[in-house]
C-alpha cells in the first residue's frame, strides 16, 4: 500500500494528466455517440499520430543530411516536444478541413471517408516510422502514450488547453446541440450548420492533438467513447449526459492509474480497460433499477 501511494505520488503529474484528459475527452466524446461519428473518433487520434511521426521523420532526415562527424544522430527531446504539436495539430486540421468541405458538398459516403482516413493514417504512420531510422528511440514513446513520462510543464499545458476548450464548448453548446440534433431547425434560425460543425471539429481537433501527444491514441479514443457510452442510458437531458460522462471519465482515469501502478500494468491499456468496466456496470445497474421499478409498480397479488 505504501509502495502504491509512493508510486502515485512520484508520478502524480502523469495521474493528473490522465484525470484531466479523462474529463475533457468525454465532454466532447458525447458528440461522437450522439452524431454517430465514432469512426471519425478512431480516425482522428491516428491522424494526429501520423502527423507527429511525419514532422519528426522530416526533422530526423534533415538532421542526418547535415550531420557533422562525431555528432549524435538523435534529435534532442526539446526539439521533439516542440515539433510534435505542429505535426499533430497540422495533420488534424488539414483532415478536418477536407472532411468538412466534403461534408458541405453532401453525398452518401461520409462513413467511407472516415474509414478511409483511418486506414490511410495508420498506413502512413507505419511508413513514417520505418523511414525514420531513429523512430523507435523517441517517436515510439510519444505514440504509445507512455503517460508516465508526462512532466509538470506538459500537464499544465494540457490543463490550460482543456479548460479553454471546455469554456468554449460550454459557451457554444446551444449551437452545437441544435446544429447536431436538427440542422433544418438550425438553418431556419439563421445558424450556418457547416460553420458550427467546423467549430465543433476544431475543438475536437485541439483536444485530440494535445491529448494524443501526452497520453497516446489508445487512451484518447478510449476516453472519447467509453465514458459517454456508459453514461448514455442514465442521462435524462443533456446536462446529465455531460456531467455523468465527465465524472465517469475522470473517475475511470484515476482508478485506472491506481490499478496500473498496483498491478504494474502499462498505463494506457489499463486506463482503457478500467473505463470499459463501467459499460457492464452501467448496464447491470440499469437492469437492476428497471427490475426494482417494475416490482414497485406491479399490482399486488391477493
Amino acid at each position: 500500500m505504501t509502495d502504491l501511494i509512493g508510486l502515485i505520488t512520484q508520478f502524480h503529474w502523469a495521474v493528473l494528466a490522465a484525470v484531466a484528459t479523462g474529463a475533457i475527452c468525454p465532454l466532447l466524446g458525447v458528440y461522437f455517440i450522439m452524431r454517430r461519428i465514432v469512426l471519425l473518433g478512431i480516425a482522428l487520434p491516428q491522424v494526429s499520430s501520423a502527423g507527429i511521426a511525419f514532422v519528426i521523420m522530416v526533422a530526423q532526415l534533415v538532421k542526418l543530411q547535415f550531420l557533422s562527424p562525431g555528432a549524435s544522430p538523435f534529435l534532442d527531446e526539446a526539439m521533439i516536444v516542440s515539433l510534435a504539436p505542429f505535426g499533430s495539430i497540422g495533420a488534424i486540421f488539414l483532415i478536418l478541413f477536407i472532411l468538412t468541405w466534403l461534408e458541405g458538398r453532401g453525398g452518401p459516403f461520409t462513413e467511407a471517408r472516415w474509414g478511409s482516413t483511418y486506414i490511410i493514417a495508420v498506413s502512413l504512420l507505419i511508413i513514417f516510422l520505418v523511414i525514420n531510422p531513429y523512430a523507435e528511440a523517441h517517436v515510439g514513446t510519444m505514440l504509445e502514450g507512455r503517460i508516465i513520462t508526462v512532466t509538470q510543464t506538459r500537464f499544465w499545458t494540457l490543463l490550460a488547453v482543456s479548460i479553454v476548450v471546455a469554456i468554449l464548448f460550454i459557451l457554444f453548446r446551444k449551437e452545437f446541440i441544435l446544429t447536431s440534433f436538427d440542422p433544418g431547425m438550425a438553418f431556419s434560425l439563421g445558424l450556418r450548420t457547416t460553420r458550427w460543425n467546423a467549430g465543433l471539429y476544431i475543438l475536437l481537433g485541439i483536444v485530440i492533438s494535445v491529448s494524443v501527444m501526452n497520453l497516446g491514441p489508445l487512451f484518447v479514443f478510449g476516453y472519447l467513447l467509453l465514458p459517454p457510452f456508459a453514461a448514455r442510458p442514465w442521462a435524462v437531458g443533456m446536462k446529465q449526459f455531460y456531467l455523468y460522462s465527465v465524472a465517469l471519465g475522470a473517475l475511470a482515469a484515476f482508478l485506472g492509474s491506481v490499478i496500473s501502478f498496483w498491478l504494474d500494468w502499462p498505463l494506457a491499456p489499463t486506463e482503457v480497460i478500467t473505463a470499459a468496466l463501467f459499460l457492464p456496470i452501467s448496464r447491470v445497474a440499469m437492469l437492476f433499477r428497471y427490475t426494482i421499478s417494475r416490482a414497485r409498480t406491479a399490482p399486488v397479488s391477493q
Partner: protein
Amino acid sequence: MTMGGSENNRGLTNVVRLEAVSLGYGGKPVVEDVTLDVHRGSCLGILGPNGMGKTTLIWGIIGILKPMKGKIIWNRKADHSRSMRIGYIPQKERLDPAFPLTNLEVVQMGTFAERPWSPWLRPVQRRSALKALERVGMRHLSGMLFSECSGGQRQRVLFARALASKPDIFILDEPTTGIDLTTRRQLINLLSELHKDHNITILLVSQHFGPLRDLFDEVIWVQGGRAVMGPAAQLLSEEYIARAFGGFKNSEFEAIN
C-alpha cells in the same frame, strides 16, 4: 414555372417569393423553374406524390438548399434570418433518438433566437417553452426523453418548439404522417386556430391532403419536377389534377387524398 400572384397585382404582402428557382442535389434539379409567392396570413399546402420534391422545395425556402438557379426573397430581403422567424417542424423520423434530450430541452431550442449570443437561457425562455408544451397538451411530459415519446407525442413536442419560436411563418413537413387520429385532429385544430385567429402564415407539406383540405387557401402541386400553384378549391379538384398532370390516374388521386 408557375405563378402565384405578385404583390402588385393582388395587393397582398409576400412573406416569401421564389423567382424562377431550380433546386436539387449534386447538380441534378429536382424541381425546376418555380415562381411563386407565399402571402402573409395564407395557408399554403405543398402537395404531391412521394419523392417528387416537396421537401426539396421547403428546404430551399428555409435556406438549407441553395437555389441552382433563380432567387428566393424573404420579406424583400435576401437572407431570411435577418427578416423573419421560421417555425420549422421537420419530419420527426429525421431526428436521431441517440440524443438524450428532454421534451423541454427540445422546445427550448425554439427560443434560442430570442438571445442568440447568450449561452444561458433566461427563465422567461423556459416559461415560454413550458407554455408552448402546455398548449399542445405535453407539459406533464416536459421532463421525459424526446426519444422515448410516441410518434404523436413527438409531433406535438415539435409543434410546441415551433410555437415557442414565435414564428412569422410555420413550415411543417409531413406533420400528420404516422400519428394517431386523435393527435392528428388536435394538430389540425391547432393549426386552424393559429391561422384563423392569429393570422399566421402556414406552409405545409403533405402527401395525404384529405384531412387538411379545409385548411388550405392555396395549394402548390409538385410532381415531375414541376410546381403549380393556385387556389385550393380549384387545384384540389380531381378534374384539375387530371388535366394539369395528364396521366394522373384516379387511383393515384385516391391514394393521396
